[in-house]
């Protein structure tokens, strides 16, 4: 009798866990897509900064404007609690994002600051891109240093 009660309780626990586990695939797609948009546009600016693609003031400005636009996306819906790499597969987002959320938001704000800096200088000439790229790289690293796990 005792065994049966235990078995039922265990089964109930398993079902409860399954019910709690949520599907975060939409959130993951959205935030990973956001980073792809960032990488594409940083890539245009970086290519010009390194002289790998010809400098084009208009294209540089559009890329910088896009980065600023991305920086205005509300991070809330993209980063629901429980969508960290210890809880689910398919992400490198570390639990520290939620454990130290203020730090995460500060660093996301750091990207916005760097993007705004790029927006100001992107159309002013090829030589202005290098230092602004350095700031962008610093902003990316600052967050990835603490909040993203290796592949």
């Amino acid at each position: 009798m005792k065994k049966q009660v235990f078995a039922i309780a265990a089964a109930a626990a398993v079902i409860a866990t399954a019910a709690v586990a949520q599907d975060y695939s939409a959130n993951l797609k959205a935030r990973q897509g956001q980073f792809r948009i960032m990488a594409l546009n940083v890539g245009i600016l970086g290519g010009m900064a390194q002289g790998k693609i010809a400098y084009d003031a208009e294209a540089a400005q559009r890329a910088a404007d896009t980065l600023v636009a991305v920086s205005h996306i509300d991070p809330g819906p993209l980063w629901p609690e429980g969508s960290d790499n210890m809880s689910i597969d398919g992400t490198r987002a570390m639990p520290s994002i939620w454990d130290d959320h203020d730090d995460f938001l500060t660093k996301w704000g750091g990207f916005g600051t760097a993007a705004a800096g790029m927006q100001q200088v992107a159309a002013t000439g090829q030589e202005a891109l290098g230092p602004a790229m350095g700031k962008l790289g610093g902003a990316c690293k600052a967050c990835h240093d603490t909040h993203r796990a290796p592949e």
Partner: protein
Amino acid sequence: MRAFRWLILAAVLAAAAGWWITRARPLPADALASLAGEAARGETVFLAAGCASCHAAPKATEGAEGAEDKPILSGGQQFASDFGTFVAPNISPDPVHGIGGWTVAQFATALKRGVSPEGRHYYPAFPYTAYVRMRDQDIADLWAFWQTLPASDAPSQPHEVGFPFSIRRAVGVWKLLYLRDDWVMGGDADPQLERGRYLVEALAHCGECHTPRGPLGGLDTARWLAGAPNPSGKGTIPSLTPDRLTWDAGEIAYYLETGFTPDYDSAGGHMAAVVGNFGKLTSADRAAVAAYVKALPRPAE
């Protein structure tokens, strides 16, 4: 009965020999005494060797705004491993809680022999297996730079290492197996490749994470920089060998400067701290590391 006595004598001799060969081997007290250190050059050594990446307080992120301030090496970062959790000690110039009371010979002994001023073996979480290749002049310069850093009176935390790894003497055996001062990439090298080799193998200790380890925690040099499991968590540290890494030298140098990969992903984890340091070095040094990486052989199967 007589045989038994001989057996005991042999056992005592073996124990004595074991004690002798696992002893700490400090450098002579007058080591480096003839060298004058220069702090400005020492800062380059400091950045390339990544001292602050592990010994700065856990919250002090490099590469962030305001990181121009000199780092406070108060320690406290934790490094989980198969052997226990190591906690970086306070190595700021504080005379009591840091290493401000050391001589330059004691500093060099720590770096090149992995031995404390009290004659204890350090655990190889401290990468003296790389620093053993450091030039004496670089150590003198680094020590001069050290004197310009701020002191911290935060006490060092003990390592969380269980038996049998808590026996420090055992590290003496480990050193016999793994502490080597010759180059992993042997043979002739032009000046750029030589500089790259020095940066990669001696100062930046890239192999500590990028090279897989054997069961005792020694680096598997047959698979030098061929990638390894992340020593402190999930994921893997990528391979730098030509069978896996397809970036050209310019892309490697740009990555070390800005943290951007060729497809504009960005460095993360501990590598972000490395890039934070390497971005402050000269472009010649970054190019030298790139030249070294491009010269790596394919790893053994």
